[in-house]
C-alpha cells in the first residue's frame, strides 16, 4: 500500500505521480493552478460521521440512572450500575453507559471520548424525515436549503483535493452531502473499477478504450472527470483493498456499519486524501420490545460500539488525524410505551471520539425528568443545539471557523468540547 506520509518525508511528490503510471494527476494539476492552492498531499484531518437513523434512545444508551422519575417512567426498561439492574458502566455518579458499549467505555475512561446529552434540534418535529432533513441540511427551520452541512464544510475547507476527499459509504448520496462540492457515494470500494462480470481481461481492455475515448472528448467536464476517474482507480489499488488485513487483534463486526467503517479505515490508511467520511446505522426506531441489557436495542448498540471500537483500534497511528462523531435525528419518550418500547421524543445523546477531544465527560444541561421538566410533558428537552456540537468539532478538527456559512441563520456558540 502506498504511504503518503513516506512521500511527504522525502518530499517526493514526483515519486507519487510515477506510481500512477506517469504524469501528474489532473486533480493535482488543477489544484496547482487554483488560487486556493494548498498542497493536496499535505497530511489532512479526517472527520467521520455516523448517522443513527430511526432515532436512538439516548436515555437508554446513556441513562441518568440516579433520577427516580426516570426509574418510575421505565419500569421495564430501567438499568443501573447495580448487578441486579443491568450493570451499566458508571460514568460520573449520575449517568451510566449501556453494557453493550463495553467496546467504547475504555475511550471514555481515557478521556478520548466525550458524550453530549440532551442534544437535538430546536425544531420540535417528531417526524423522522423532517428531523433528519433538518439535521443534515443544518437548517432546522428551512426545507429549501439545497446543500447539506457536510458539503458546505467541504467548501469552507477552501482547498481542492482528490476525488476521495468526501466519501459516503452508502448507496445514494446522503442529504448531508447534497451540494456543489464533489463527493462520492459508494457502498463497496471494490466497485470502483471498470467491471465485466466473470471477464477481467475484457474489463481491462474496455477500461483502456474508455480512457482513450474520455481523453479525446470535446466536453470539458467529461474529459476532466474521465481523467480523474481513471487516476482514482489507479490510486485506489483494488488489490490492496481485496487483501486488506486489519491491525492485529482487530475484528470488525460483520455488519453494514462494521463493513463501512472498515472501508473508511482503508481509505484513511491509503492516504488518498480522505477528509470527510459518512456512514449509517439503522434499526433505532424501537417502538416495541426494546429490551434492556439484552434484546433488540442492546444488539444494535453492541454492533454500533464494537464497530467503532474496531475502527479506532485499526487506525493505530492514524488516530491523531481522525475524529469520529455520531448523530441521530431525535431521542425517544421518557416513558416506556405499551409495547415494551419507546416512541418518538426530542433530546438524545451523541458520542465524539478523537485524540483532540476533551473526553471523559457527559456534557449536558439535563435536569430532572419529572413530568413538569419535560418537553410537552413527555420528552427529554433539547438543551444543546446539535449545531453547537457539529460546529465545535468541525471548527477545531477541520479548522472551519465560518459558522455563519456552515449553519446559515444560526448565531449560537460552539460547545467547547475539543482541545484547543
Amino acid at each position, binding site marked *: 500500500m502506498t504511504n503518503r506520509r513516506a512521500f511527504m518525508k522525502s518530499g517526493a511528490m514526483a515519486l507519487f505521480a510515477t506510481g500512477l503510471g506517469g504524469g501528474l494527476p489532473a486533480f493535482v494539476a488543477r489544484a496547482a493552478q487554483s488560487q486556493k492552492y494548498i498542497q493536496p498531499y499535505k497530511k489532512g484531518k479526517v472527520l467521520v460521521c455516523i448517522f443513527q437513523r430511526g432515532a436512538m434512545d439516548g436515555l437508554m444508551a446513556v441513562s441518568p440512572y440516579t433520577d427516580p422519575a426516570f426509574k418510575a417512567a421505565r419500569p421495564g426498561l430501567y438499568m443501573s450500575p447495580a448487578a441486579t439492574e443491568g450493570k451499566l458502566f458508571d460514568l460520573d455518579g449520575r449517568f451510566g453507559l449501556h453494557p453493550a458499549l463495553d467496546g467504547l467505555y475504555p475511550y471514555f475512561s481515557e478521556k478520548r471520548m466525550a458524550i453530549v446529552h440532551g442534544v437535538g434540534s430546536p425544531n420540535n418535529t417528531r417526524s423522522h424525515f423532517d428531523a433528519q*432533513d433538518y439535521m443534515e441540511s443544518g437548517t432546522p427551520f428551512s426545507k*429549501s436549503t439545497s446543500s447539506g452541512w457536510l458539503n458546505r464544510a467541504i467548501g469552507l475547507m477552501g482547498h481542492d483535493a482528490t476525488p476521495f476527499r468526501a466519501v459516503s459509504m452508502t448507496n445514494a448520496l446522503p442529504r448531508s452531502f447534497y451540494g456543489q462540492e464533489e*463527493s462520492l457515494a459508494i457502498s463497496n470500494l471494490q466497485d470502483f473499477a*471498470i467491471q465485466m462480470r466473470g471477464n477481467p481481461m475484457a474489463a481491462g481492455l474496455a477500461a483502456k478504450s474508455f480512457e482513450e475515448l474520455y481523453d479525446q472528448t470535446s466536453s470539458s467536464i467529461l474529459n476532466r472527470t474521465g481523467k480523474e476517474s481513471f487516476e*482514482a482507480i489507479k490510486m485506489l489499488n483494488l488489490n490492496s483493498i481485496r487483501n486488506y488485513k486489519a491491525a492485529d487483534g482487530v475484528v470488525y463486526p460483520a455488519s453494514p456499519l462494521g463493513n463501512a467503517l472498515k472501508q473508511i479505515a482503508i481509505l484513511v490508511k491509503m492516504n488518498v486524501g480522505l477528509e470527510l467520511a459518512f456512514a449509517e446505522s439503522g434499526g433505532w426506531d424501537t417502538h416495541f420490545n426494546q429490551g434492556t441489557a439484552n434484546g433488540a436495542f442492546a444488539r444494535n448498540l453492541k454492533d454500533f460500539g464494537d464497530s467503532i471500537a474496531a475502527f479506532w483500534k485499526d487506525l493505530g497511528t492514524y488516530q491523531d488525524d481522525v475524529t469520529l462523531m455520531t448523530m441521530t435525528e431525535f431521542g425517544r419518550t421518557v416513558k416506556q410505551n405499551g409495547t415494551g418500547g419507546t416512541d418518538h421524543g426530542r433530546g438524545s445523546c451523541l458520542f465524539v471520539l478523537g485524540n483532540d477531544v476533551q473526553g471523559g465527560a457527559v456534557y449536558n444541561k439535563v435536569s430532572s425528568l419529572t413530568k413538569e421538566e419535560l418537553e410537552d410533558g413527555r420528552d427529554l428537552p433539547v438543551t444543546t443545539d446539535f449545531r453547537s456540537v457539529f460546529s465545535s468539532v468541525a471548527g477545531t478538527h477541520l479548522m472551519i471557523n465560518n459558522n455563519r456559512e456552515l449553519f446559515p441563520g444560526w448565531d449560537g456558540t460552539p460547545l467547547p468540547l475539543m482541545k484547543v
Partner: protein
Amino acid sequence: MQPLRFIKVFSLGAFLTIVTAFTPAPQPSAGMFKLHLPYAKAGLTRQQAAAHLLNRFSFGATPGELDAVVSMGLENWLQQQLQASLPDEELNTRLLNGYDALAMSNAQIVNTYVRPDQALQIGVAKGLIRRDSIRVAANTAEYRMMIRNLMDSANLKPVNELHRQLINQKVLRAAYSNNQLQEVLTDFWFNHFNVSLTKNQSQQYVLTYERDAIRPNVLGHFSSLLEATAKHPAMLEYLDNASSVSNDNNVANPRLKAQLQKRLEKRADQLMEEGNAAQQARLMKQIAGQKKNEGLNENYAREIMELHTMGVDGGYTQKDVTEVARVLTGWTLYPNSEYGAGSAQRKILERVGLNTLQQRGFVVQGDFLYRADKHDQGEKNILGHVFPAGGGYEEGMRVIELLSTHPATAAFICKKLATRFVSDTPSVDLVKKMTAVFLKSKGDIKQVLIAMVEQVDFWKPALVHDKVKSPFELVISAIRSTHADVQDPFQVFNWCARMGQRFYYYQAPTGFPDNAAFWINTGSLLNRMNFGLAFATQKIPGIRMNWAQLNNNHEPESVEQALTVFSDILLPERNQEQNIKRLLPLVKDVRIGAKIAAAADNAPLQMKEETGMTEDRPMKKQERKALAKNTKQPLQMPYTAGVNSPIAQVAGIIIGSPEFQRK
C-alpha cells in the same frame, strides 16, 4: 380519484412496436399551431435538426425514428408531441397490465398498500390480531413474519409493492410511450414540484400525484399545475401544509374544540393500549400542537414561492411567506384511511354532511379538503395585495393565480425550462423571449415551448450535444436506441441509483439539480461506463436486446462494418467519421480479446450483486429465482453468439463513451 378518466386513456388506439411504421403525418387541425423551426438558419441540416429535436424532446430516438421524423416533417412530429394524444395501447394494455395501483384512488391505495405499522393497526381494528400479541414477538424477524401473515389475511399489500409499480411504470412509459414529450415533461415537472418516497406521510400518494396532478397538466397552463400540486395529498403532506392551522379561528366552536380535544386524547390512550405506537405518537403531537398554539407551518408557503414559482431572488419577503402560510391555513386532505386517527375525523365529517360543511365554508374536492374552522380569518397582505379579513378558501386560489402569473415566476420557470431543453447556461435573450410569451399567454406551457424552438438559439450547433444526460435519460436512451425488451423495469432503478439518481427518493423539495456538474463525478462516471458494458453484454437481468435484429438480421461482414452499423444506431447524426476513427483501434483490440471473451462466456452470469443493491428491493425472492432461471437459458442471437461477443463489447463501449452521455 379519477379512475374513470384513466380507463378512458387506456383504451385509446394501437401501440407501435416498430417505430419505422410511424403514423402518417397529421393534417393540421384545429388546436394545432403553425411552426417555424429556424434550424437551417442556425446551420443545421434537416437530419441534424431532427436528431437534436429527438434528443431533447424525447428520451432518445428508436431505430429508424430519425428517418421517420425527417420524412414526416419535424414540424409535424412536434405537433403530434405537443398534442400528446398518440395511441399507446401496447403500453397501456400489455406492458402496464398487472399494475393495479395505477387505476386506484387515493383511498383505495391507502387502505391496500400499507406500512407495517399501519398493517398492525388495521389488524387490531379488524380483530385479526390481539392487541397485546406483538409483545410475543421475540425479535425483528418474528415481528416481520407476524406482519406478513397479518397482511395476507387482511388482504393488504406492502407499500414497497406500490413503490415498485410507481418506479416500473415510469421506466416503461419513458421507454415505450409514443407520447415522448409528455413523459419528458412529466419527469421535468415532477422534479420541479418534487415530493419524495422518503417521507412516510406522503409516500402512499406519490403515484397518484404523478398520475393526477402532474401528467395531465404538463402541456397545459402553469396555474393548473400549481393548483393541482397544491391540493394533492402528496404535496400537502410532504411540505406539511396539511397540518398548518390557525388557532385564532373563531369559526370553530370552543365547546366542540374541547370535545374534539377530549376525543383525541381518549383515542390516544386507546392507541397506546393497542400498541399502535407510531400512530399514538403522531396523535400526541397533534394534541400537543393544538394545545400550544403552534399551528402555523410555513414550509409549503416558503417553497411555493422559492421553488415552485418566483424563485429565491423573486423579490418576496419573509413577511410574504408568513402571509401566504396564513392564507393556506386549513388547506388539507380529506381523511381517507378506514382505520386510525384519520378514520375518526372522517366519521365526524360524514356525520356533519357535505351540505352543512359547505354552509360553514368548507370545500371538498376529491381528496382535497378546505377546513374553514382551521383558517386564519385575519387580514393579509401579499406582494402588495390586500386580502381583507374574513376571507376563506378563495384566498388560496387568489394566491395561486397571483403567483402563477407573476413576472418573477415567468422568468424563473422559463429559465428552468431552457436549462432542461437547451443548455445548462441558456442565453439571457432566449429566456427573455420565452418569458414574454409566458406572460402574454398567462403561463401556457405549450406556447412557451413553441417560443423556445422557434428561436435560433435552440438550434445553435455549439449547443447541440451540450447537455449531459441524467442517469435515467442515459438508461432509457440506451433501451430505446437498441429496442431493448425490458422485462424487469426495476433493474433500471437499481442502475440509476448507482449512477446517482435514486428517482422518487430525492429528499429535498428542490428536486435533482439539472446540470452536468451534478451528474458527473468520478464514482458516477465509472458506473456509467459499467452500465454500458453490463447493458450491451446482456448482464442486466430482465433487460434484453437483439443486436442482430437491429441490423435487420444481416450479419455485418466485418467487425469494422459492425462498428459503422452500431455506431450509426446508437449515435445517429454525430460525427461518425471521427467516432469510427477513434473506435477502430479499440475494436481490433477487442477482437484479439474475443478469444478470452468466448472462454468467459461459459462462466455463469453473476446475478447476486446486480439484483439486490438497494435496501428496498421490492422484487420477491421467487421472482428473482424465476428471472435467474430465465436468464440462464442460452441466448438466441445469430450474430452475437455469446454475451461477450465483440459486437456487444463494442456497443458497450459506445454506450459508456463520452458521446453517448450527451444529448
